[in-house]
């Protein structure tokens, strides 16, 4: 077992809406990533994936608020730190973020290199502009980005180029953990491939030590990440290796989610495509018991009453359902 | 519609603007009805200050009531203008040997006491011209008069048509204001023509609002038509109309306004004509904003569906476009009314405003106050209420506009 880069224990955060209502979008999430590993987070839109990404940064501002839980990066618990300290000492160097809409993530009126300087100066005030430039050119070149990009403004770059530039800037300080929130979903296929390639390279070249990759595109996860967690209504409902999760899901929701995609592997061609009926619960008032019960075709009355504990296995697999594995497998087998 | 109104009234800015505007509107409609004067009636004379005026004749004829109050201090106060106080101080320091620090010119009683103790016309007063010496002696006499009180004799015409003394009025005689038969109240004084300011002002507010409304409606109608056609038809029509619109956005509209107003000439420039002139020069930016709205609507599904169903152009514009731009048009109209009122005031200040002798506008009132240099003669009542009225109307309309903007552009909402 490698060194643990990121450990999250029972993290709870909430959104406060304009009307002062609380939305519990991350409600007791625990996860762990080892050095050199990547973890995928999957789920429908509105399940709390993006909020989880923001919450993992350990730096909160309205409308997002911290409630409880721990975020431990390389043995260092950042949950108790002052926000300003998190910003100065953690963000960028320990943990970094790639936003969902990278199209607008860069200040349109600033040259890329000026922004890189600003980022580096937060953590290393003394570094000269020339050193920064040389370092940025080197890093851009390794990552396959033309260094001329540095002299341009964001508005002059194409969508795919902007996204790759954002990735390069996010990782320029070689963070221990990288959180990527749907980094490729708004791009065309070619740009998507380049982005995915770049994410792999980051890991191989050691520019990042671990990665959380959030997406609703499951085939991507299977190709990119080592492990996958499935999120539903602010909670993790199942955890496993990429292979297990795609070919052998246990939780009825994971099963449904995997059933709604086509994985280009032999044997999956015959699987019937199906959508999960219903909509996710309103997180302003999370339901009692299993949160998926209302949409689950195997649910029985007690599902809606009792809180379901996480069931852990020796190999790191986890799921959250009152049925045991054998029963579920049997039911799945019966239904084809 | 009902829903949108309800939304509008949920914005505090809109409500404040609406209330301010309503107050001005109600004042403009109702005050002239209840006012005892006609707005154009020259009741008094130039720049009478605000206050209640009582008939002198009626006052002396009314019932007298004696009061045991010494009126001399008030008389002294009234007799001593700031200039005179300054003069007394100078004399006391120069010839009376009084320390400058011991004189407080605001304290009437103390000042007069000092004066009585030191002043004497026999003082050599070296360095003063004889005319100055005389003026000091006059001042001394008037002070003495104010102190002792003046007895006034009343003469009335007897049955033979001769004037005879009927009564000596003491300076402790008072008349109850309510007992005076004829009084005139000018809450905001009189303007340069001697007309009651408040009646004239409220009348002007009404006329200016009418001018603003007519100008705003004309500008909005032209702007809306051009914007709709340019935005919806596109192509060559759009190119031509946009070219025109851009040109008239860059050429300052008040220049065209001045040129037209000057050409129409004094005789032809009634309030309605001025409103029309303002309207036909103010449309460009309404056209611009309507056009950009229409362009964003043009390819919406419901419009395409309507096109495919073979509906005519007027039908599509009326049913599928107009309802969606309506809120913007209302906002544009509100701003146009406000800038129409300002444009009228501006034209009037330049001497190109409405030429009429039967009514007045806010701009005309400001122009007259300026012509008669009210601001340099201290007649604040002749211009400050007018300027405030313009500002409040314009402010209230802008507030309503901002309130609506926040509703239709949720980005700007206050959390």
């Amino acid at each position, binding site marked *: 077992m490698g060194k643990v880069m990121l450990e999250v224990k029972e993290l709870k955060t909430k959104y406060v809406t304009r009307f002062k209502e609380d939305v519990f979008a991350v409600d007791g999430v625990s996860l762990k990533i080892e050095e050199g590993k990547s973890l995928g987070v999957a789920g429908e839109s509105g399940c709390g994936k993006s909020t989880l990404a923001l919450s993992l940064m350990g730096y909160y501002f309205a409308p997002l608020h911290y409630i409880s839980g721990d975020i431990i990066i390389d043995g260092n618990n950042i949950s108790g730190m002052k926000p300003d300290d998190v*910003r100065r000492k953690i963000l960028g160097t320990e943990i970094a973020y790639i936003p969902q809409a990278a199209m607008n993530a860069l200040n349109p009126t600033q040259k890329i290199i000026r922004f890189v300087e600003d980022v580096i100066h*937060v*953590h290393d005030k003394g570094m000269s502009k020339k050193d920064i430039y040389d370092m940025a050119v080197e890093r851009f070149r390794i990552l396959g980005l033309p260094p001329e990009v540095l002299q341009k403004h964001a508005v002059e770059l194409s969508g795919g180029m902007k996204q790759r530039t954002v990735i390069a800037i996010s990782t320029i300080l070689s963070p221990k953990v990288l959180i990527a929130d749907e980094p490729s979903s708004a791009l065309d296929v070619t740009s998507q491939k380049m982005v995915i390639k770049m994410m792999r390279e980051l890991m191989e070249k050691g520019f990042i030590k671990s990665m959380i990759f959030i997406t609703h595109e499951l085939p991507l996860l299977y190709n990119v990440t080592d492990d996958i967690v499935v999120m539903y209504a602010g909670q993790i409902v199942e955890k496993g290796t990429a292979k297990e999760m795609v070919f052998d899901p246990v939780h009825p929701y994971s099963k449904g989610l995997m059933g709604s995609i086509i994985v280009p592997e032999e044997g999956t061609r015959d699987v019937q495509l199906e959508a999960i009926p219903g909509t996710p619960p309103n997180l302003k008032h999370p339901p009692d018991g299993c949160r998926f019960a209302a949409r689950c075709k195997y649910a029985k009355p007690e599902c809606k009453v009792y809180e379901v504990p996480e069931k852990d296995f020796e190999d790191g697999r986890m799921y959250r359902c009152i049925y045991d594995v054998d029963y579920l497998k049997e039911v799945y087998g019966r239904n084809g | 519609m009902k829903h949108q109104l309800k939304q509008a009234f949920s914005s505090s800015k809109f409500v404040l603007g609406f209330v301010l505007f309503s107050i001005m509107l109600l004042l403009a409609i109702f005050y002239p009805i209840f006012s005892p004067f006609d707005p154009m009636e020259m009741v008094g004379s130039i720049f009478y200050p605000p206050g209640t005026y009582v008939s002198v004749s009626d006052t002396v004829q009314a019932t007298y009531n004696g009061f045991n109050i010494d009126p001399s201090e008030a008389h002294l106060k009234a007799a001593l203008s700031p200039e005179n106080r300054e003069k007394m101080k100078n004399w006391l320091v120069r010839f009376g040997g009084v320390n400058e620090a011991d004189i407080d010119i605001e304290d009437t009683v103390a000042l007069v006491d000092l004066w009585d103790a030191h002043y004497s016309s026999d003082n050599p007063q070296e360095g003063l011209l004889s005319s100055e010496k005389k003026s000091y002696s006059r001042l001394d006499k008037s002070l003495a008069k104010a102190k002792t009180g003046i007895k006034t004799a009343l003469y009335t015409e007897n049955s033979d048509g001769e004037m005879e003394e009927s009564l000596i009025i003491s300076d402790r005689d008072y008349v109850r204001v309510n007992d005076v038969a004829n009084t005139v109240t000018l809450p905001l004084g009189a303007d340069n023509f001697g007309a009651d300011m408040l009646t004239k002002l409220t009348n002007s507010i009404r006329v200016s609002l009418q001018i603003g409304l007519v100008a705003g409606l004309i500008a909005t109608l032209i702007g809306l038509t051009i914007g709709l056609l340019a935005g919806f038809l596109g192509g060559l029509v759009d190119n031509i109309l946009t070219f025109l619109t851009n040109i008239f956005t*860059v*050429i300052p509209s008040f220049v065209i306004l001045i040129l037209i107003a000057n050409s129409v000439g004094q005789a032809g420039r009634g309030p309605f004509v001025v409103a029309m002139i303002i309207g036909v020069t103010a449309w460009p930016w309404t056209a611009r904003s309507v056009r950009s709205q229409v362009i964003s609507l043009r390819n919406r599904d419901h419009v395409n569906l309507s096109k495919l169903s073979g509906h005519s152009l007027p039908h599509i514009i009326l049913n599928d476009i107009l309802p969606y731009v309506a809120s913007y048009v209302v906002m544009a109209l509100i701003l146009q009314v406000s800038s129409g009122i300002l444009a009228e005031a501006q034209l009037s200040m330049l001497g190109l405003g409405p030429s009429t002798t039967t009514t007045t506008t806010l701009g005309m009132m400001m122009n007259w106050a300026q012509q008669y240099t009210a601001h340099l003669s201290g007649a604040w009542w002749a211009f400050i209420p007018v300027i405030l009225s313009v*500002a409040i109307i314009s402010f209230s309309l802008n507030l309503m506009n901002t309130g609506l903007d926040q509703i239709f552009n949720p*980005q700007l909402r206050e959390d």
Partner: protein
Amino acid sequence: MKGFAKYYGKRIGWYLITLVIAIFLNFLLPRLMPGNPVQTLVSEMMGSSTNATAAEKIMQQYTEQFGLDKSIPEQFIIYVGKLLQGDLGISFSQFPRSVGDIISSSVGWTLALQLPAIIVGWILGNFLGAIAAYIRKGVDKVVLPIFMFISNIPAFGLAIVMLFVFSLQLKIAPSGGAYAPDMFPNFSLEFIGSLISHFALPFFTMVLTTIGGQAIGMRSMSIYELNADYVKYSRFLGIKDRKIIVYVFRNAMLPQITGLAMSLGTMVGGNLVAEMIFNYPGIGNTMFSAIGARDYPLLSGCTLMITIMVLIANLVVEILYGIIDPRVKAAQQESEN
């Protein structure tokens, strides 16, 4: 860079066309009124003039100048021809001074007063708007509405109030003019002091009326920018708020330059009338006396001069904006492709 030059070439061309149209309107509008305008005006002038030879001379001058016996298109060509030589005619009311001479002696005063006033008002307005957007609460609820109210007072209205308060009541400002009436322009310290003391009141009046409108625009733009994705992203890279605010306000302020250009016409209009209240010897005052004296050539010269100044200001703003805001450059390149 080639696209850049081409773009601005086009824009300058467009402004030239606009100028021609403005000149045409300046020429045509007065001629649309019934009767022959120049003849009417000249005869009016002659009626009130005691100087018969001067009136006759003017009549002669104008028959020649406007080519009164020719058709409208021909007259326009004559008008433009004279204009190109800088000949705007002779003033009726200040005979025998030429319009060009009168205007050139007043245009400097207007520029010296309005240009700094509008720029300072714009900067302060943007500053206030940015603060209102960032701090909200007190500034947004109290200070901003006060300036909003002031900006709704027409400049000339505020001018009257300012004169009343500072000149008549407090006696700390002169009652009008550009310098003390008993002085002659020279470079003495005393004269410059007089210039400044006469400059202050009109300047602050114009600044005060400009602030509110600009602040409102800046506030909206800043709120919009504060919600932009790059703000969140920059925060997550650890960049300090102080730095991010610089990004935000720069981005919000740049479009405000166009906002300034859009409202320039209205602003200048109000300020010109304010000039008249302060008896400041600029174009506004000249225009006012031209209207009062029915001095048509002078009025026409003033309106043309104002139009040209506004057009130039717009063009300068547009070019400046294109150079400093890369977003515009990108949009230009897009439209080229």
